[in-house]
């Protein structure tokens, strides 16, 4: 069965791009959230196998959302999506239990590699 992914990003453009990459590579998109608050709620609701989490978002950033998701489900697999120049936040995320991170702009191959590895 294909793995279910929750996409979290505040830019619709990024969500759609990611969704496309995922669906073309046999993943199922279980939900899309546009900020950290939605992400945490949706996580509880759809219980995805994996989450791709943007870092800079309004309302609640990705690292905070990651912490809350981890508190709710310590086994949660969360992949951070970061842009260049956010290294320190990525470090925070790793400390908070992020499984891996991908750096924008997305390279399809890298995204899929990271996802495949994260769910294996």
């Amino acid at each position, binding site marked *: 069965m294909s793995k279910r992914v929750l996409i979290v990003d*505040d*830019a*619709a*453009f*990024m969500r*759609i*791009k990611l969704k*496309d990459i995922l669906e073309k590579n046999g993943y199922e998109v279980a939900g899309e959230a*546009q*900020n950290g608050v939605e992400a945490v709620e949706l996580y509880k609701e759809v219980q995805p196998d994996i989450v791709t989490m943007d870092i*800079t978002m*309004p*309302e609640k950033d990705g690292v905070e959302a990651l912490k809350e998701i981890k508190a709710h489900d310590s086994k949660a697999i969360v992949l951070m999506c*970061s*842009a*260049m*120049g*956010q*290294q*320190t*936040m*990525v*470090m*925070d995320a*790793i*400390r908070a239990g992020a499984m*891996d*991170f*991908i*750096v*924008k*702009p*997305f390279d*399809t191959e*890298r995204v899929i*590699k*990271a996802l495949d*590895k994260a769910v294996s």
Partner: protein
Amino acid sequence: MEDNSAYRDLFFEETDENLAILNQEVLQLEQHPNDKAIIDAIFRAAHTLKGMAATMGYETMAELTHAVENLFEMVKSDQIKVSRELISLFFESLDLLTEIVENLRVDESDALDISDLVSRLHQVADTDVVLNESTRQGEETGDLFTYPELEEGDKAAIQAAMSSGYYLYAVGIQVEADSMMKAARAYMLVNRLEQFGDILLMHPPADQLEQGELDGPVTLYFLSKEPAENLLAETEGSSEIESLKIRQTTVKEEQQLKPDEKDLVEEVSPGGDPDLRQVDPADQADELEVGKKKSSARKRTPAKQTIRVDLTRLDQFMNLVSELVIHRTRLEDVSEKNQLQELGEPLTQVGRITNELQELVLQLRMQPFNAAVQRFPRMMRDLANELGKEIDFVTEGEETELDRTVVSEIGEPLIHLLRNAADHGIEKPDERLKAGKPKQGTIKLSAYPEGNRVIVTLQDDGKGLDPRLIEQSAWKKGISTEGLSDEQIQALIFHPGFSTAEVVTGVSGRGVGMDAVKEKIASLNGTIETHSEVGVGTTFRITLPLTLSIIQSLLVKVGTETFAIPQAVIDKVNRFEETQAVPVHKGEVYQHEGQTIPLIRVGEKLELPQAEQALQHVIVVLIGDKRYALVVDDLVHQKEIVIKKLGKELNGLSSFLGATILGDGGICLILDVTSICTRKKAT
């Protein structure tokens, strides 16, 4: 390059949004250079733009946005102060960005020369941050493993651990050369290893790594009870790791290896003090930025949940609802004529639902006036600078909602009016002082709802429209001004091909006249009037329909025809007696409650024969602040009608707004009351 064409529309939509935010916020920043919320907003928008551009493969755009974002990171972390020059530089960047985006929109290429601007952006970054200078030396050339030296204390600890079942591992990590966050990649691996044991010694030290500094390999000694193959299995396939070496070893072995290491991938790198590392200004800023974020918790209003809908679908929906309304009305007619009691109740329900549907679809099409206005402050700022004038541009009622089509179409005429106001209206500061006015001119743009219409006014306190100048200009162009009042002469600016500016400047007078403005507004079923006083200023008053398609109307009979009059303009309806019409030298007036109102007999105006059994009524309409009394032969009833535009072939018929289909399937013309009342009699 991957094919991103499918995202183009979305890309442009979001890019436009973000560019608008940037323009708006940078403008705000000029006023409030220390407002963190504004700086954050700018940073986020630039950041988003960069991400999208890079993903689409628009390298030039990505490079420019990256430079802007970098600079803003430094602003965020207080490394650079916001200055006028900086703001101007940002605006320049935004303009170039807009240009790039426009080019992309047309031909998919973003090849514009940005090197000059980017280098200036970098220059600002470099000169303002002294930090970089000294840290740029000592770059490490070697990318091979060099293990840290074990001290006596470490050795003792290792011996102790090993005797209680720990193994000693020498671990070397080399992150891929093109990895974008080397330190974080290595950190992740180290973090994972730590779950299985303890790190004894690491180079570079952990805190340095955590700060995002890494340009060579990471080497460490690690104590764990896990066998090597378990550790390898746990860390295998980590993203963007070029090589990972986990080698079980002993203190003795390490010492023997020391001067001449034998690890497959390694060699001692010559020279280079490992503590003097290159500091990437971006990362430096990033780090400070995180500190900031933690200290000042930002509050933001919750974002509205929205989805994007193709406008053509919305139009289609609108049209279908309109059709539904027409047929509901027909059904009601049939039911009434045939006294079908049974149909009554369900029809009421259908009526209620279609009403709600109608309202909903109207709301869906509504957009705040702000969408048209938000680019103006920036434009006015530039205009004022260009013209050497001081202008305070004020907007009011940006939240007023209008039909989306109106909002998107009204921008162009408004820009024209604003340019005119800045160029011809507002005087230069010294002239203003001489005239006893404040040095800074004011241009005010406001919008507010008035019944079924929205009024947009544009007011300046400039020199006003001089009727004498207009007159002269009119004569030169062969336009007769004989017998016209000053007000009517001022209205001549809307005459095709009219321009009062003595010198055509780059700002206004681009060949589009005020007549084009008027025409555009008329095409939106709107009207424009001007009131101007020499030396005091000019006000334009634009009246726009709230919606373009469904209106309440009063059906009237004129001769044998039925016409619809939009209810929005109706002030009063009374029975009409011939005695109430008082002839004056140019026509007739209607006297009502002490007021004298110009009287217009619609039948005469439209050249229709009077109905035989007329039950004449007078309909008092309000246009702007003027009343007109329309005499019609009879009232039919009040009705909600759907405006259907007349075809292009009938464009010349200025007396009608459009047509609608009545309950019985007949067609009824909708009177353009404004045109009927204000149009001069054909001479």
